[in-house]
């Protein structure tokens, strides 16, 4: 670092710690509101693009490709299909998880997209792409993702 004076020891220039004092509250939006109201009622709702006919789950207010407002809301029935899964060993603080989490991307036939959620009641050797799964709803639902506790292999098993 030509021409620059460095501290004799870097400890002489300790870092300055700081953080944000704010937090955030998000509305679910036009499509999200409908979707989570559906979830409270134990239903998975998808929205349809009037131009290309794609059925989006999770729904969006618009079709990103046609750039058109979606409509024609339909209920999508489980089971869903595991498109990919991972066994997660770290929590958000990057600390090891005592109990690894199984996370899956789950799509539903006839829809475009899919849902990210935890898998439960599942043995490691059972895990595979293509596994059919169904949601386990929470008893108390408040219109958020936690209204689904997790997905589990669809019964009866494959």
């Amino acid at each position: 670092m030509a021409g620059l004076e460095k501290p004799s020891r870097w400890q002489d220039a300790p870092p300055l710690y700081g953080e944000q004092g704010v937090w955030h509250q998000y509305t679910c939006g036009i499509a999200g509101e409908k979707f989570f109201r559906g979830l409270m009622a134990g239903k998975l709702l998808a929205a349809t693009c009037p131009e290309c006919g794609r059925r989006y789950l999770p729904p969006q207010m618009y079709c990103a490709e046609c750039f058109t407002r979606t409509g024609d809301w339909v209920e999508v029935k489980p089971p869903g299909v595991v498109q990919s899964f991972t066994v997660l060993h770290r929590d958000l603080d990057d600390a090891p998880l005592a109990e690894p989490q199984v996370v899956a991307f789950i799509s539903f036939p006839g829809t475009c997209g899919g849902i990210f959620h935890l898998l439960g009641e599942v043995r490691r050797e059972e895990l595979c792409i293509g596994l059919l799964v169904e949601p386990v709803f929470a008893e108390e639902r408040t219109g958020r993702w936690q209204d689904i506790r997790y997905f589990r292999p669809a019964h009866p098993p494959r």
Partner: protein
Amino acid sequence: MNVSVHIRDYPGIPLKDRDIAEGRVLTTEWRVKARYAWDTGAALGRFFRGLKEGKIYGRWCPGCDRIVVPPRMFCEWCFRPTVRWVEVGDTGRVNTFSVSYVNWDASRSTVPRVPAVIELDGASPGMGIMHLLGEVGDTLEEILRRVKVGMPVRAVWKPPAERQGAITDILYFAPRPGGGE
């Protein structure tokens, strides 16, 4: 009434606070753990060590012959290294000031604070730092009567044992009687 004579529909659904409070609209919350340990580096590292000793340091640029505060290892105008540490005074003059009744989160405070830009003696003209003024009164009227642009001030320091090597080692700047006008 139109945005443009050709557009008649204005999208957007405004909400009231009670729409959320009463659960008519769903929301989710999140508090991000955004924490940092910023490297102070060479210039501010030395500056903060100085504050701990009750001294304010600037840097001198040989190109434009300025003593700059806050210090930097380069001159932003000459684009060459600054080459010398210079202790500047802990006295100066008010360049501008305001009287704040809001806290960091926009909540209101009944006790006003007086942020100011203070041009430090011994640094080149115009070299100000932002800090607070103190000992200038408790009401808007009193503060406006006592504080003037150009008013001489001096730093009021924390006791040496309580200093941490931070800008808050200076508690505030107070009027300096006899500082001249």
